[in-house]
C-alpha cells in the first residue's frame, strides 16, 4: 500500500531449477516480469558460458529474419496486425523454425538472383533494339548524301591533311568495319575526343541520344544513353577502337552488314523481349507471393526468437550446483510477490513434466536491494521526472506523490494565463482520451513520444494554469471582469471636466467610495488599465514567491523526519532535523510572518507609514532595532531572540551528531565485546543475521545504510563523520539563503510570460482589430491565424518548456536537497515486454 511513498520491500531469493524444467520456469518468469536476476558468473567470458551455442543459433535465426524483413519492406508489403504474443518455443520446436527460415532464405535468394539475371538480359536486348533503330537512321542519312562528301564540321584539321576518300581507301584494300554500341551520355564527349586523338580521322563517329531512360544495371538508377556508330578503316584501327570502347565501359553489339540481316535481327529481338517480359512478370509475382506468405508469420518468429535468446541469456547467468543436476539462480524479488513466484515455478515445472519441482528459498543479505516503486499510468510520469534526478535509495521517502501536486502548481505560478492554460489542458485531454489509439502509441518520433508519455503531467499543468490564470486575472493578456470591479472612477472625479482634461487619472483608495471592497477571486480587472500595474504586481508576486519557497522548503525538511524515523535513527531527529527547522523558520519563517503582518495590519489609510520589510530584515541581523519605527511592539526583543536561536542551532547542527555518535561508540565499548562473545557462541548464520539486524535497529552501525556487509566490524571514523556533517551544515545554511532567493524565479517567469503575452497582443492582434477600412475585416482573418501560430510556438511551447524546466529545477535542487539522497538502483525485472527489439530500432517492424 505505501509502495508509492517508500518503495517495495525486496528480498534476495535463490531459485533451484531442475535442468529439465529450467527453460520453462524462466519462460514463465519472463512473461510475468517479477524478478531481477543477478549474474552468478561475472568472471566468465561471454564465449565461455554454457549456452553459447544456443545463443549463436538464435543470432543466426535473427540474421535470416532481418534479411526477410528487409526484403518484405523493399517489396512494400505491409505486415499484419501485431496483437499476438506467442510464448517462447521449446527447444524441440526450435529446429522446425530454423528449418523453415533456412528454406525461405534459400528460396528467396534463388528467386532474387534469377530475377536480376532476367532483368540484365532484358536490358541488353532493349539496348540492342534501340541501337539498331537509331543506326538505321544514320545509314539512311549517309546514303542520301554523296558517299564522297565527308561531314566533319567538328574535325576542321582534317582538311589540311591528305584526304583519304572512300574510293582511294578501297583501292588500298582496306576494309570498312563498323562498331556500334551504347555509352553513357556523360561520357560521349570525352569518348569522341579520345577517338579523334588516337585514330586521327580514320574513324567516323556518329551518335544520337536515346529518348527514354534506361536503368543502369550496376547502380539501378535511370540514366540516359547515347547510341554510337563508328566506321573505321583497317584492322589495327579496329583494335584501337575496341580498346577505347572497353575503357569507356560501352556496351557493344554486333552491327548487321545488310538491311535484311538487320530486319531479321530486329524481329527476333522483339519476340525475345516480349517473352522476357512475361517471364519477368511471373517471377516477380512468385517472389511477391513468397514474401506475403512469409510476412504472415515473420512477426511471430521475431518474438519467439527474441524470447528464446533472452531465456538463454538468463540461463547463462545461473550457476550449476555440485550435483550438476540443478541450476541455481539468485534473484531480487519483492516480498509481496513471493507467492506469485512460487506459483510461476510450479507452473513451469508442470509444463515441462518434471517429477521434481523447482522451488524458491529466501536468503539473507546485507547488500542493498534495488528500488521498486509501483506506478500506474498517471503516477508513472511524475515518478519518471523524479527518477531522472536520481533513483531513490532503498526504502527512502519518495518525493513523487507530493510532486504530483506541487510540480503542476509551481509550473502554473510561472505560467498563469487562463487562455493558454485552456489550450494546454485541451491538448493534454485529447492525448489522454486517445491514449489507447495504436497510431499515437507507436510513432517513432522521439519528441512526440516525450510529450505523449507526459500527457497526464501536461493535463495537470494545464488545469492548474487555468486556476492561476483566474487568480492573476490574465487571459491572453486581457483581464476578465466577472464579478464587477471594486474600484469606482465616478466616486473619485465628480466633475466630468477633470476627466476630460487629464491624460492619466489617479484613483485614491482613501477617498470614500473609490475602493468598494476586494475583488472576490483574483486580481481586480481594473489593474489591466493601470499604468502602475507592474509596480503593484511585482511587489505581490515577489512576496508570494518567497512565501511559497519557504513553505516548500520547510515541507522538504519535515519530510526528512520520515526517513529518520524509518531508519531508526532517532538521534537525527534532535540533532539534525530540529536545528535545521529552527534555522529555517527563525530566519525565513519570520520573514514570511513579517510579510503577512504587513499585509494584514497596514491598509490604504496608513500606507505612507508602512515600513520596508527588507530594511527590518537587514536590521534584524545587524541588531539595530532602534533605527526605524517598529512594526509591532516588542519587535526588537523577539528579533534578538530569533537570531540567537538561529545562531545557536548552527553549532548544534555542526557538532551534535558526530559527538553523539562518538560517545555512543566509545561509551558502549564493553557492551560490544559482550555481544562479540555471543556471536562466537552461536555459529548459525541465520542468528548472526538476526543479531546484525538487531544491531542496525539500535543505530550502532554506520550512518548510511547503503554500504556493503563488510563493515560489521563497526568501525567509527570520527573525522569522516565530522567532515560529512560539516559539509552538510554549510550546504544547508548557505543553501537556505540562496534557495529562498532562487524561488524568486516564480516571479520572474510569470512577469516574462505576462509581458510576452501583452506584446504579442499589442503587436499582432491589435493591428487587425484597429483596421478601419471595410476590407479590414478580411485582414483580421490572417492576423488571427498569425496570432494563433505565434501563441502556440512562443507562448505555449517555448514558455511552457521554460517554466517546466524551472519548476523541475526547483523540485530537484531546492526541495529535494532537504531530504532526498537519490543514490539507489532501479529495479529492472526480467520481462519479455521490456526487452528492446533490434528490428524495431531499425524501423523494419
Amino acid at each position, binding site marked *: 500500500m505505501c509502495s508509492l511513498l517508500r518503495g517495495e520491500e525486496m528480498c534476495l531469493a535463490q531459485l533451484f531449477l531442475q535442468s529439465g524444467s529450467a527453460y520453462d520456469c524462466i519462460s514463465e518468469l519472463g512473461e510475468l516480469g517479477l524478478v531481477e536476476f543477478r549474474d552468478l558468473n561475472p568472471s566468465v567470458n561471454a564465449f565461455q558460458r554454457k549456452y553459447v551455442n544456443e545463443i549463436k543459433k538464435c543470432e543466426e535465426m535473427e540474421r535470416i529474419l532481418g534479411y526477410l524483413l528487409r526484403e518484405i519492406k523493399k517489396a512494400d508489403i*505491409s505486415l499484419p496486425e501485431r496483437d499476438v504474443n506467442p510464448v517462447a518455443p521449446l527447444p524441440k520446436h526450435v529446429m522446425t523454425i530454423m528449418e523453415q527460415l533456412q528454406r525461405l532464405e534459400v528460396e528467396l535468394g534463388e528467386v532474387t538472383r534469377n530475377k536480376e539475371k532476367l532483368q540484365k538480359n532484358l536490358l541488353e536486348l532493349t539496348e540492342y533494339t534501340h541501337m539498331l533503330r537509331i543506326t538505321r537512321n544514320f545509314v539512311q542519312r549517309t546514303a542520301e548524301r554523296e558517299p564522297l562528301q565527308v561531314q566533319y564540321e567538328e574535325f576542321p584539321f582534317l582538311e589540311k591533311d591528305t584526304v583519304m576518300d572512300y574510293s582511294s581507301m578501297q583501292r588500298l584494300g582496306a576494309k570498312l568495319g563498323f562498331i556500334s554500341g551504347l555509352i553513357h551520355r556523360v561520357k560521349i564527349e570525352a569518348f569522341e575526343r579520345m577517338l579523334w586523338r588516337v585514330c586521327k580521322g580514320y574513324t567516323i563517329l556518329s551518335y544520337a541520344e536515346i529518348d527514354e531512360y534506361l536503368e543502369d544495371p550496376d547502380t539501378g538508377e535511370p540514366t540516359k544513353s547515347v547510341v554510337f556508330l563508328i566506321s573505321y578503316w583497317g584492322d589495327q584501327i579496329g583494335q584501337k577502337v575496341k580498346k577505347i570502347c572497353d575503357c569507356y565501359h560501352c556496351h557493344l553489339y554486333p552491327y548487321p552488314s545488310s538491311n535484311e540481316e538487320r530486319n531479321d535481327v530486329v524481329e527476333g529481338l522483339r519476340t525475345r523481349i516480349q517473352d522476357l517480359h512475361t517471364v519477368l512478370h511471373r517471377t516477380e509475382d512468385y517472389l511477391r507471393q513468397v514474401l506475403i506468405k512469409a510476412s504472415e508469420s515473420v512477426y511471430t518468429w521475431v518474438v519467439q526468437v527474441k524470447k528464446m535468446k533472452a531465456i538463454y541469456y538468463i540461463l547463462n547467468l545461473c550457476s550449476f550446483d555440485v550435483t550438476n543436476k540443478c541450476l541455481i539462480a539468485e534473484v531480487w524479488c519483492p516480498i509481496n510477490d513471493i507467492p506469485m513466484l512460487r506459483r510461476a515455478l510450479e507452473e513451469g515445472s508442470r509444463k515441462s513434466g518434471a517429477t521434481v519441482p523447482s522451488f524458491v528459498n529466501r536468503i539473507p543479505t546485507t547488500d542493498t536491494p534495488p528500488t521498486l516503486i509501483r506506478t500506474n499510468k498517471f503516477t508513472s510520469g511524475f515518478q519518471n521526472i523524479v527518477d531522472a534526478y536520481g533513483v531513490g535509495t532503498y526504502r527512502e521517502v519518495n518525493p513523487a506523490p507530493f510532486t504530483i501536486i506541487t510540480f503542476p502548481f509551481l509550473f502554473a505560478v510561472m505560467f498563469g494565463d487562463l*487562455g493558454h492554460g485552456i*489550450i494546454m489542458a485541451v491538448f493534454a485531454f485529447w492525448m489522454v482520451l486517445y491514449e489507447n489509439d495504436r497510431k499515437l502509441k507507436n510513432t517513432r518520433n522521439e519528441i512526440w513520444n516525450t510529450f505523449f508519455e507526459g500527457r497526464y503531467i501536461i493535463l495537470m499543468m494545464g488545469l492548474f494554469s487555468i486556476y492561476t490564470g483566474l487568480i492573476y486575472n490574465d487571459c*491572453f493578456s*486581457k*483581464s476578465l*471582469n466577472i464579478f464587477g470591479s471594486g474600484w469606482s472612477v465616478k466616486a473619485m472625479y465628480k466633475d466630468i*471636466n477633470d476627466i*476630460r482634461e487629464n491624460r492619466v487619472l489617479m484613483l485614491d483608495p482613501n477617498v470614500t467610495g473609490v475602493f468598494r471592497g476586494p475583488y472576490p477571486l483574483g486580481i481586480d*480587472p481594473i489593474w*489591466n*488599465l493601470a499604468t502602475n500595474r507592474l509596480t503593484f504586481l511585482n511587489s505581490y508576486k515577489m512576496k508570494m514567491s518567497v512565501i511559497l519557497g519557504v513553505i516548500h522548503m520547510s515541507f522538504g525538511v519535515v519530510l526528512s523526519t520520515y526517513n529518520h524515523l524509518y531508519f531508526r535513527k532517532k538521534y537525527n531527529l534532535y540533532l539534525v532535523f530540529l536545528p535545521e527547522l529552527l534555522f529555517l523558520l527563525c530566519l525565513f519563517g519570520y520573514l514570511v510572518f513579517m510579510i503577512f503582518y504587513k499585509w494584514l495590519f497596514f491598509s490604504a489609510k496608513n500606507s505612507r507609514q508602512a515600513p520596508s520589510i527588507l530594511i527590518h530584515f537587514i536590521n534584524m541581523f545587524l541588531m539595530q532595532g532602534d533605527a526605524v519605527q517598529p512594526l509591532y511592539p516588542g519587535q526588537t526583543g523577539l528579533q534578538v531572540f530569533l537570531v540567537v536561536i538561529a545562531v545557536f542551532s548552527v553549532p548544534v547542527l555542526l557538532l551534535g551528531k558526530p559527538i553523539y555518535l562518538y560517545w555512543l561508540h566509545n561509551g558502549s565499548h564493553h557492551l560490544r565485546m559482550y555481544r562479540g562473545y555471543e556471536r562466537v557462541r552461536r555459529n548459525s548464520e541465520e542468528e548472526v543475521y538476526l543479531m546484525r539486524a538487531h544491531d542496525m535497529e539500535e543505530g550502532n552501525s554506520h550512518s548510511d545504510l547503503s554500504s556493503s556487509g563488510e563493515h560489521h566490524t563497526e568501525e567509527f571514523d570520527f573525522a569522516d563523520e565530522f567532515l560529512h556533517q560539516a559539509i552538510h551544515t554549510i550546504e544547508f545554511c548557505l543553501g537556505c539563503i540562496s534557495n529562498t532567493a532562487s524561488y524568486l524565479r516564480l516571479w520572474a517567469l510569470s512577469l516574462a510570460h505576462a509581458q510576452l503575452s501583452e506584446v504579442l497582443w*499589442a503587436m499582432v*492582434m*491589435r493591428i487587425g*482589430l*484597429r*483596421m*478601419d477600412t471595410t476590407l*479590414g*475585416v*478580411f485582414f*483580421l*482573418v490572417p492576423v*488571427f*491565424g498569425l496570432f*494563433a501560430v505565434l501563441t502556440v510556438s512562443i507562448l505555449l511551447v517555448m514558455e511552457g518548456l521554460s517554466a517546466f524546466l524551472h519548476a523541475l529545477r526547483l523540485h530537484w535542487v531546492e526541495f529535494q536537497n532537504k531530504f532526498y539522497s537519490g543514490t539507489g538502483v532501479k529495479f529492472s525485472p526480467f520481462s519479455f515486454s521490456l526487452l528492446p527489439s533490434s528490428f524495431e530500432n531499425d524501423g523494419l517492424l
Partner: protein
Amino acid sequence: MRGLICGPKLAACGIVLSVWGVIMLAMLGIFFTVHSAGLIEDVPLTENDFDPNTNSIQKIYELYNKVGYNCFIAAAVYVFVGGFSCCQMKLNKKKEYLVQ
C-alpha cells in the same frame, strides 16, 4: 482524388485553428459589443474623439460595435475554413481506405 488539396496534417491544423478562431473571435465580438473597458486600446480611436464635444461617447460606442461586427464576420469566415478543413479530412480518410 478530386478536390484533395491538403494532406491529413494540414487539414487537422486547419480544423484546430478554425475551432479556436470561431470560439475566440465570437467571444471577442461579444465583448466588443458589450463595450468592455479592457478592450479600449483595441478600438481604432483618433485624437478628435477625445474632444469634449457632444456625443463623443456615442461615437466611441459605434466604433466598439463596428469592431465587434468585424470580429463576428471573421468568426464566420473561420466557420467556412473549418468546414473546408473537415471536407479535406474526410477525403483524406477515404483515400486512406482506398489505397492499401
